[in-house]
């Protein structure tokens, strides 16, 4: 007998068959069935039909761009997110708690609003003379905006719990601040950085609302995968949309599973 079945009657009023059944039904109706339908649609004409859709030039360009920009954005997030978390934990300055609150703004602000605000400041009517509208830089900025909290919020608690004695020991042994950070602090932060970075990457791969206005949706130039899918739906090429969706789906599922495994270690 397993230890679970040996335990006394669980104290809480959840009947597994009933509550579990309802939970699974709810998940199926809303999440699982629709996702199965996308996969079915993508492979409706067999693997060849799927492959033909995914390898048409515009789809390839969109997928490549999405992957490349998401990677760049994730790298920037890893550096800036760690830096911001460091400043929020180790530094003291007036208004720190306000800055800390600000980090969650991208989670609280609708993505379309995020895109519009960036376009207002860095678009064709820019008051500061920077115009990144309809460029890849603009797309990257939109993605940086919406993915900002992930790395910061993953690293912050780890940094708070970190043992500062080790750092002090390293410093007293003659290590400079940068060496101390690289050799002592960074190894402890690595799982948190990877976890936060993968979430940011997954989010960037699928992001739509913040990108749709600032990218201008120029095929081969600024059209990311989600915008491409949207266009295919509007043009009634549902199979093309489903095929590219499956690629995105696979990428984020593999990514999340991998990150989960890494974070558990």
């Amino acid at each position, binding site marked *: 007998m397993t230890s679970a079945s040996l335990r006394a009657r*669980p*104290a*809480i*009023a*959840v009947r*597994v068959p009933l509550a*579990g059944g*309802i*939970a*699974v039904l709810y*998940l199926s109706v*809303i*999440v*699982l*069935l*629709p*996702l199965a*339908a*996308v996969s079915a649609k993508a492979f409706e004409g067999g693997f060849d039909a799927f492959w033909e859709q995914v390898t048409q030039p515009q789809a390839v360009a969109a997928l490549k761009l999405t992957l490349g920009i998401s990677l760049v954005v994730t790298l920037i997030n890893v550096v*800036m997110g760690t830096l911001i978390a460091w400043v929020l934990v180790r*530094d003291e300055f007036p208004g720190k708690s306000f800055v800390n*609150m*600000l*980090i*969650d*703004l991208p989670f*609280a*602000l*609708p*993505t*379309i*609003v995020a895109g*519009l*605000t960036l376009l*207002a*400041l860095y678009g064709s009517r820019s*008051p500061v003379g920077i115009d990144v509208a309809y460029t890849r830089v603009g797309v990257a*900025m939109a993605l940086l905006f919406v993915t900002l909290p992930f790395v910061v919020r993953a690293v912050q608690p780890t940094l708070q719990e970190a043992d500062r004695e080790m750092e002090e020991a390293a410093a007293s042994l003659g290590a400079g601040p940068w060496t101390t950070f690289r050799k002592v602090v960074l190894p402890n932060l690595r799982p*948190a950085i990877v*976890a*936060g970075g*993968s979430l940011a990457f*997954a989010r960037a791969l*699928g992001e*739509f*609302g913040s990108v*749709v206005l600032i990218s201008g949706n120029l095929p081969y130039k600024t059209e990311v995968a*989600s915008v491409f*899918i*949207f266009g295919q*739906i509007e043009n009634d090429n549902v199979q093309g949309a489903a095929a590219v*969706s499956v690629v*995105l789906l696979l990428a*984020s*599922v593999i990514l999340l*599973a991998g*990150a*989960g495994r890494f*974070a*558990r270690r």
Partner: protein
Amino acid sequence: MRALRLTALLYLGALLVAPVGLIFYRTFERGVGAAWHSVTTPEAQHAFWLTLVLVVIAVPLNTVFGVATALLLERREFRGKSLLNSVIDLPFAISPVVVGLALILVYGRTGWFGDWFAEHGIRIIFSAPGMALATIFVCLPFVVREVQPVLREVGTEQEEAARTLGASPAQTFWRITLPAIRWGVGYGVVLSTARALGEFGAVAVVSGRISGVTETATLRVQERFEAFDPVGAYSASVVLALMGVAVLLFMNLLERRRKRPRAQTTTEGLA
């Protein structure tokens, strides 16, 4: 240290504060009147109303589902538990546009259940029920993921004590478990609300975007912008941004109540 602080603050200033600040300035630059007028037109009012309706449908349903699922995952053993646990995260990993497409393929006219719904005269896609499904989909994981760590932390001792003293399972839940997890539930509800208010992509795909009928507040922002009506787009954005700020303040308040660093949403899903 000072250089690091300066870098961090400049980055946040250029990426978050300045753009959001400018939107407020642009909205009111020609006076409050124009902005007020454009968020009180019948179409605008309908859009905000529809957004609220979607929140009121999606958030309570996800809260009930979330608490029940978190209890199952933390307090019970059953086959397929780890599978259920990982499936919960799917909505976080999926592009909103894919969510919309997926719902069309099941509930749309040519979808799996399209004929059945058509025969019974029920319209899901390009109308409110589809938009509700999309909203539920995108904010489904929040409550589960916020409640789970709290349940784990409070443990089962008090629940067991209550049961030993003769409390029924329902009494135990209402008197012991729920009060213990209330801040976690609150936090999940706030996050779900923010996400539901702001959802764009999934709703854009399933709504058909009919102004004054299936247009939500976020869809209206885009529609106004593309109609070369910046004041309309900016003022609707400002209303949404204010809701966002309210959410932010709420989050901050709850966080203090919980006296525990958050970030569970970002890392919990992976554990």
